[in-house]
């Protein structure tokens, strides 16, 4: 995957494929020829595409979740302990901050903040929300077609275009 500034000035070749088998084959052949694939569009989540691209099953979003979970535990314990400390209602010489009841707020805040951070991580990494869809995107990619985007320089665009056709693309577009 290349940087956004680099891609903004690049021409892209977008190959459109009709089914999973075709697109997975094309990914494998492009990779075999060391042609760097920028993105693969699909109407649903596909482990076949992920495996063909050689991506790990989990993204970096898991670190957002972990951070949220730790922050949640700390928040829950702090809230329960701090509020108990404000009301020093000492009965029978017991310490005003009890341990056991902090477990419930800690657990609930763990879940809550971990979910907030997971969602935030997903939105941040996908640069969502955004108003404009990228110019490579085709509405048919959310219905029944698959797409492969490859960036090219002036010298290799024609050959990539030809490769896409050769690898079974039903339609190939060049996007400036």
């Amino acid at each position, binding site marked *: 995957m290349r940087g956004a500034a680099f891609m903004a000035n690049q021409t892209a070749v977008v190959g459109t494929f009709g089914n999973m088998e075709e697109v997975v084959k094309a990914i494998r052949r492009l990779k075999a020829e060391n042609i760097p694939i920028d993105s693969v569009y699909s109407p649903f989540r*596909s482990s076949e595409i992920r495996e063909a691209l050689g991506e790990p099953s989990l*993204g970096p979003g*898991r670190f957002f979740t972990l951070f949220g979970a730790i922050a949640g535990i700390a928040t829950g314990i702090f809230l329960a302990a701090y509020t108990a400390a404000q009301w020093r209602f000492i009965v029978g010489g017991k310490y005003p901050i009890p341990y056991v009841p902090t477990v419930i707020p800690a657990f609930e805040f763990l*879940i809550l903040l971990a979910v907030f951070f997971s969602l935030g991580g997903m939105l941040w990494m996908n640069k969502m929300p955004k108003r404009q869809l990228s110019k490579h995107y085709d509405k048919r990619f*959310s219905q*029944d077609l698959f797409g492969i985007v490859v960036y090219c320089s002036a010298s290799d665009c024609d050959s990539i275009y030809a490769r896409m056709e050769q690898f079974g693309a039903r339609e190939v577009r060049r996007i400036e």
Partner: protein
Amino acid sequence: MTFVESNPRTYLMESGQPQGLTSYADADMQIIRTMWHPGTFYWFCVAMTGLGVAVGAIAWGYQIATGIGAANVMHPVMWASYLTNFVFWVGIAHSGTLISAILFLFRASWRTSVSRASEAMTIFAVMIAGLFPLIHLGRVWIVYWILPYPNQRNLWPNFQSPLVFDVIAISTYLTVSFLFWYTGMIPDLATIRDRTTGMKSRIYGFLALGWEGSNDYWRHYGTAYLFFAALATPLVISVHSVVSWDFALGISPGWHSTIFAPYFVAGAIHSGLAMVLVLLIPLRKIYKFENLLTINVLEQIARTIILTGLIVGYSYAVEHFMSVYSGNEPERFQYEWRMTGYYSWLYWIMVVCNVFVPIALFFKKVRTNLKALFSIGILVLIGMWFERLVIIAGSQAREYDPYSWGVYKYPSIVEWGILIGSFSLFFFLFLLFAKFLPTISITELKEAIPPEEIKG
């Protein structure tokens, strides 16, 4: 050779996967068409449930104007129908996230066609459950007192109280369930955005947040969704456990028991699954989803109801056994009184509906008969509502001191109005959901279509 290898087609039908879809576009067509032309019967249902909501609103308005005495709530039974409704609706809320999250983690194929509607059920049920503490407060305009902030004397709500646990747990559950539901729907909203034009496209586009569906999008989405499911699963268990502690941390006979958390969780799932049947069977018929919500899917839900019914039955038996075995006299008296006292008719209806009726689901003929499934769903819901009332009102009616005994006799007209209003609001919201949002996950449906079924 395994069964799956030898009988691939039979396996697909048995596993509850969608049938009759020969292209990915078919999935779009079948789900999206239900959103534009729901038919006259749909609008009739919307009007009727809207009327019910108005009845509930008028009843609540009357209670606010005249005071909580408009409900038949008085000493010693201060928690009666409103708290019964609260616990009932929280229980209903359980199965949605349970079906969606736990079955996702276990990769259960029959989840696909029921998860979205069940999640919606969860959200609406929690919203309605959250109304009942407000209704029960009487002076609803000072509800902000329960929020965790200090008053002028720098006193905070007591975080050692199960009631504060409950506020945190329920609000967390509502927030997490909503985000789980919404996040799962983002790719579908993008699909609808791309299939529509004009204002519709703009509205769904806004809700889809610019989703494009490239490999990066799916990977980050998949990671977040997996963690959502993994976090929501213990949350489901914790929420009704916390609700049960509202009672179990009190010292009333019949409440103060360590079995309450698993007992309430099982009961909640029991009632939630029954509500899933009650919602999905008409939805399947009205929207012609027979190929998606297959009999096999409903049968899987029925099988789970057998399990939860047996757990609930076991819990009833253990409660009675422990009341005798513990040698705790008020406890023993409480359980005897439940079986023979003022609420005994509710108690026996509860036992029959929750424990004996689901036993019929052991028979495949019953499990595959839609009318039978629907009827059993209704009976379990009745049984579970009565169970909440028996537990809540029964224990308060017969505490330790005979001097303070009394009973909650019947709901007042205001309580009936609010009960009708709550059920109407639930179905009203569900009908709106079914009209404006995809009731079955389009992308998961596409994922579930076997590649060999795709033509072209």
